[in-house]
């Protein structure tokens, strides 16, 4: 009961044999070395395992690896070469993380939000990040980083 799957990970084609019961998060971390994907709660509640699947953030802790056959995954590892470093840099500038365990998830959720809404309200930012939990920062710096990101995007658009 082994399946060949093919998918795109951070711009590269991947082919892999997996058992249907293998979890996506384990395959990413243990077999492909994608360790930005963190195992927090394993129940879909904390967002630490967030990946971008075909343009939308999803929980890799709630998927089997076989399900991603034919699909496209992005993780923070791929962001520099995909030209998406900006959000990361602003988060760093605002010192928005302490241990950083939640960081990849927050950055991916922020990116998805800004792709959907270029000028989100504070309420919309909070809603988009509500599924990402951080036990260290108290969220203040995170929200400030996103607010600055929004400002920058606005200025870029105005030019």
């Amino acid at each position, binding site marked *: *009961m082994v*399946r060949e799957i093919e998918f795109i990970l951070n711009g590269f084609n991947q082919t892999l044999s997996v*058992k*249907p*019961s293998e979890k996506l998060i384990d395959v990413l971390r243990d077999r492909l070395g994608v360790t930005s994907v963190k195992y927090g709660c*394993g*129940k*879909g*509640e904390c*967002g630490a395992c*967030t990946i971008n*699947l075909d343009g*939308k*953030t*999803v*929980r890799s802790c*709630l*998927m*089997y690896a*076989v*399900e991603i*056959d034919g699909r496209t995954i992005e993780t923070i590892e791929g962001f520099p070469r995909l030209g998406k470093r900006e959000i990361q840099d602003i988060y760093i500038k605002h010192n928005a993380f302490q241990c950083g365990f939640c960081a990849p*998830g927050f950055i991916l*959720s922020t990116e*998805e*939000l800004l792709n959907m809404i270029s000028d989100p309200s504070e309420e919309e930012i*909070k*809603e*988009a990040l*509500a*599924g*990402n*939990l951080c036990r260290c920062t108290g969220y203040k710096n995170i929200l400030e980083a996103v607010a600055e990101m929004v400002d920058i995007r606005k200025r870029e658009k105005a030019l």
Partner: protein
Amino acid sequence: MLAFDYRRPLVIEDALSLKKEWGVSSSLLMGGTDLFLAIDEGARSPEMLIDLKNIKELKTLEEKEGYVIIGAGTTYSELIDSELIHSTLPGIWESSRLVASMGVRNAATLVGNICNAVPSAESAAPLLVRDAMVHLSSLKENRIIPINDFFTGPRKTVLQSDEILTKVAVPLVMGEFGESYVKLGRYRGEDIAQVGVSVFVDSDFNYKIAYCAVGPVPMRIPKAEDLLRGKDISPELIEKAQAAILDTVSPIADIRASREYRIHMCRIMFEKAVGAAVSRMKTSQPEYGIRLI
């Protein structure tokens, strides 16, 4: 964990054949956000996982012959992004926004939510107040069942082992109406309602009221609906309706909330929900999606 096999059919007929062949030892997979945990925790141990995600015809979201059709593959994010849902089924739109978090809503489906059939099923109450019909298919027949007859117990529905719930059809309402969904959760981004209530009202003051998480199955409250029929709300009427509601619901205590707290919140949340529904029917305010508690 048990090993299982996996298929990903492209057409519904193939999925139905697999379902007939594997019956109770198979599980249907769409967003997977509930099923995955059920398998992980040993509550389900399928030998065959039938992934329905690549079946195009289950992806429908359209208006057709007086109904809004929500296909089994429609995710909560797709419902929230749909102008059709926002304008014709605002109660379902409002409740969908309160399901878990964006990363879960991008995968989870409304049909998956009702098939999972936990007492707290988020989408049950807003579907109940709109008299939605669920479409069930098997190789031998198609049946259409009112959502009110769909749930039979905690995690139990009328679905047979060879059947697939392909879509939900929600009748359009002509004329003015207002509805509302109020959810009690612990914090934003969490998935489970401790109490959920939906209210619908039309311009003749016909009310429909439904609760989730306060009994073995999500339920309508006909006694309260009868009491209110034909009348605008007043504090006295609301109080009578609340008494009828408390007569009907039977919440349990669990890790999330005590029985007393749930009963108390049933009252409070009804007042908020009916107030918002009536006001929306008359004035279109408060806007849908505004937090009512």
